[in-house]
C-alpha cells in the first residue's frame, strides 16, 4: 500500500482546518469515543430535532486520520436524518474494513478517500472512531470504545435500513 494514497490533500486539509470543531452548548446528544490503544479521545455533541441532525461538533486529541474522518463526517451528516446518518455510519465502516464494493451505489461521496485505510489494519480504528462515537451519541450511549465488544473490525453496526 502506498501511504501517499491515504494522506491525500483532502485528508490533510481537514486535519489542518477541521470543520465543525468544538462543543455545542445545547446538545441533545453527546458521546465520548476512546481508543485505549493509542490514547485518542473524541468528544461529539449534536442537536437532534424531529429526528434530524440540526447541528454537530467534535473535539479531541487524535491522529490526522481520525481528525479528518471526524471533520468530514460532521460535514456529511449535518442536516441529515438519523436514519441517513446510520446508513452512512454503516457504509463507512464497510468501506474502512474493505467490505464495501464502491462500484455499487452508496452515499459516501468524497468519504471514499478513506478507502486506502483497509490496507492498514492498525489504522482502521483511527478512521472509524468518530463514526463509532456518532453511533453511540445517536443511540444515547455515553461513551464508545474501539476495544473489547466494540471493536469496529469485528462489530457490525445494526442495519437500520
Amino acid at each position, binding site marked *: *500500500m*502506498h*501511504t*501517499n494514497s*491515504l*494522506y491525500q490533500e483532502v485528508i*490533510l486539509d481537514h*486535519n489542518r482546518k477541521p470543520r465543525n470543531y468544538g462543543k455545542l452548548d445545547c446538545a441533545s446528544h453527546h458521546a465520548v469515543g476512546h481508543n485505549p*490503544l*493509542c*490514547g*485518542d479521545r473524541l468528544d461529539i455533541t449534536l442537536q437532534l430535532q424531529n429526528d434530524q441532525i440540526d447541528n454537530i461538533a467534535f473535539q479531541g*486529541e*487524535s*491522529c*490526522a*486520520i481520525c481528525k479528518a474522518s471526524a471533520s468530514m463526517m460532521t460535514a456529511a451528516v449535518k442536516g441529515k436524518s438519523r436514519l441517513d446518518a446510520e446508513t452512512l455510519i454503516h457504509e463507512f465502516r464497510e468501506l474502512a474494513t474493505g467490505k464495501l464494493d464502491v462500484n455499487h451505489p452508496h452515499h459516501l461521496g468524497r468519504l471514499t478517500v478513506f478507502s486506502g485505510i483497509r490496507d*492498514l489494519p492498525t*489504522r482502521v480504528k*483511527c478512521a472509524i472512531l468518530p463514526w463509532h462515537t456518532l453511533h453511540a451519541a445517536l443511540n444515547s450511549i455515553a461513551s464508545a470504545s474501539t476495544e473489547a465488544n466494540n471493536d469496529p473490525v469485528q462489530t457490525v453496526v445494526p442495519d437500520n435500513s
Partner: protein
Amino acid sequence: MNPVNVSLKSEISSGFDWEKIRADFPILKLKIDNKPLVFLDNAASSQMPQQVIDRLVRYQTTQHANINRAVHYLSEVATLEYHRARCTLQQFINAREDREVIFTSGTTDSINLVMHGYGRKFIKAGDEIILTTLEHHSNIVPWQMLATEKGAKIRVVPINDKGELEVDEYEKLFNERTKFVGLIHVSNALGTINPIKRMIDFAHQHGVPVLIDGAQAAPHIAIDVQALDCDFYTFSAHKLCGPTGVGILYGKAALLEAMQPFKGGGDMIASVTFEKTIYNTIPHKFEAGTPPIAAAIGFGAAVDYLTAIGIENIAAYESTLLDYATECLNAIPGVRIIGTAAEKTAVISFTIDGIHPHDIGTILNQDGIAVRTGHHCAQPVMQRFNVPATSRASFAFYNKKTEVDALVAGIKTVQKVFL
C-alpha cells in the same frame, strides 16, 4: 557450543566487522515496498540470526521429543539439550546454580510467577509494594491484582524531567510495612538505565526482596545476578535474538524453595495421590507441563551468539549509534526527544510538533522504516511527560549509521506531508 560462534569470536578479536554480523540476519535483507527494511523496533522484539534459526532446525529435525520422561534416545537428547540451555543462561547471568534458572514463557509470565508464588504467600493486608513510574505494565498490573486481593498498597517512585528515577524519593518510601520492590532495569519507553545496584542494596538494608525486570537490559548490559545481589531477575528470549514464547526467571534458591507453585500439572510434582501432592524440587516446581523445549534451546543458542560477540562490545557499538541518532534528531526543528537520562540504552522516544505518532509511524513505514508508536505499555511514563504517545526508535547491534540517516530523512518527509 555452536562452531559458528567460535569462528565468529576469532573474527571479532581481529576487529569488528558489524556489516558481516549484520549479514547473519536474513530478515534484514527484506524490502518493504521496494525500499530496504530499516528495522528500528528492536526494543519490542529483535531479529534472529541464521545461527539461531539453524539451531532450531537442527533440534526440530534431529533432537525433538518430550523431556524428563521417556527412556528412549530422543527424549534423552532433548532433555540434555534443554538442560544445557538452562546452564547457558545460568552462566550468562552468573547465577550460583542452574536450579535458580526457571524457564517461563517470558518476562510477563515470570513476574506473574513471583506475584503468585511469593506475593500471594508472603504479602499481607497493609503491606506496601514499591514500584516505579518507569515500569512496564507487566510489572504494574500483577502487583495491582495482588494489592487488591490482599489489601496491600502500591507506592510509586517518581522520575525527573530527564526520565531518571528520583532515588532519594525511593529511599523515603521505605518503612516497616514495605515488603517488596519491583524495579525495571532499563525503561522500555525511554531507555533510562536505572541505578539498580544502589536500590537493591538499600532495599536489603530494610530486609526487602527486589525483583528486577531486565527485559530491556539483558540485550545491552552484562548481567551478574550475584554482583547485583537481586532476589529475582527476569527477561525474554525474543529481545535477545531468540524465539518468542520463552524467557527466564532467576531467583535465589532459598526464596524459590520457600515459594508456593504458580501452575499445577505434570513435571512440577514428585508424587500425586488424591489425598496429597508432593511438589518437585526447583526449578521443576515452577515448570508445570511440557515447557517450550525448542524455544529454550533456541534461547541458549541466541545467548551463545551474543556472548561470542560480547555484550560489552554490543553496548559500546550501540552507544555510538545512540549518540549519532541523538545528535541528528536534536538538529531537526520540531523534534523533541522524550527521555534524556545520562545513562541510556540505544532507545530514542520522540515527538514531532503537531503530528500524531501514528501518522509518523505510518508515513515512516512508507520508507520501509519500522518504529514503534504508541504508549509502549508504559502509560504512567506517557502521563508523566503529558503526551498520549511517542514514536520510538530502538537500535540493535545490527543497525548502522546509514539507517539513522534514513530515519532522519523519513522524519523530514513526515514534516513535509504535514506542512
